[in-house]
């Protein structure tokens, strides 16, 4: 299932406490999988830890934020000719054992993207109450836009095929990318599927999204979704005319 054209990218920013364990765990589970840590100009020993654990590291010279960091990984993967890219978080919340299930779904359904969503048996959405409200809000907002329900639009555990990779390498939301990514896919009439996954607590550190930032997150993403819809409508109208 995992061949030389499959790449795992792990975006990381100040994850020295978890990154080595994440990389080691992935290597133990899938020894043949190529791992690329995209470091968003960390100020701690993230890069050293990732290298010691056996990952390759794409080191950004300036801090770009999550979207810019993930896109750098996608760009490299696209240029190097990979046809499948999986992304997991660098904090250890995603269980590498689920990677195979995402890839299986991606290949079996022929969709462009598979999202690993928190399975109910692993405790549902365990997150800050404000963020939880935000997730529910975006689930309701995205349903009519996407024409189907989405369980956790904020999940950072995704697998994409070559078509989605080609799009993301040239156009990718930069600050809080997950939700906008779904709208970008919808604009291109790409399909996505969901796979229930086990989610764990962070191995170390704290989430960058605090209660206050959650409010900013909602406003920022809402604007991003709105702009994406405007772009889509504009193009659709041009197409009709």
């Amino acid at each position: 299932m995992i061949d030389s054209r499959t790449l795992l990218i792990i975006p990381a920013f100040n994850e020295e406490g978890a990154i080595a364990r994440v990389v080691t765990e992935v290597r133990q589970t899938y020894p043949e999988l190529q791992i690329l840590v995209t470091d968003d100009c960390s100020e701690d020993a993230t890069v050293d830890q990732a290298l010691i654990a056996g990952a390759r590291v794409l080191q950004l010279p300036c801090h770009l934020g999550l979207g810019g960091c993930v896109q750098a990984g996608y760009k490299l993967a696209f240029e190097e000719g990979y046809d499948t890219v999986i992304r997991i978080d660098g904090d250890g919340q995603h269980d590498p054992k689920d990677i195979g299930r995402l890839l299986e779904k991606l290949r079996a359904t022929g969709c462009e993207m598979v999202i690993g969503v928190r399975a109910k048996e692993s405790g549902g959405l365990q997150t800050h109450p404000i963020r939880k409200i935000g997730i529910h809000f975006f689930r309701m907002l995205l349903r009519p836009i996407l024409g189907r329900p989405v369980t956790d639009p904020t999940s950072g555990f995704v697998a994409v095929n070559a078509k989605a990779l080609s799009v993301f390498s040239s156009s990718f939301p930069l600050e809080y990318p997950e939700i906008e990514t779904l709208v970008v896919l919808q604009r291109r009439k790409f399909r996505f599927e969901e796979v229930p996954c086990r989610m764990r607590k962070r191995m170390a550190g704290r989430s960058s999204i605090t209660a206050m930032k959650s409010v900013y997150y909602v406003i920022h993403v809402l604007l991003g979704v709105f702009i994406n819809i405007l772009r889509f409508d504009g193009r659709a109208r041009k197409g009709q005319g």
Partner: protein
Amino acid sequence: MELLLDILTVLGILLLLIVLRSLRRDHIRVEHSVSWLAAAVALIALSRSGPVLVRLSGYLDLKEPAITLLFLILIVFLGVFYRFSRAISELKDMNITLTQRVAILEYKLQRQNEEQQAKH
């Protein structure tokens, strides 16, 4: 209101001096100083040209020339701010692309070096 016009003249002169000083010290690039210099000159000229300001006030149906000048300043500065917001956004996009490019090139160069070392 005469006092307000005098204050606006002083502000215009101050703006002009600050921009010129920044240009001299290379804190602002010439192409980005044009909007500020034009705004400062317009501010000084309008605040000192009573009849023009009175006529403009008549067009805008405003009673006080000083209020007219403040209104015009608001419009000009909104324009300048919008222009700079666009410039900053474009620069940010270019910076992101450049940062990603540098990182990818460094990565490829490093891999090439590793491969060459492995051959030797």
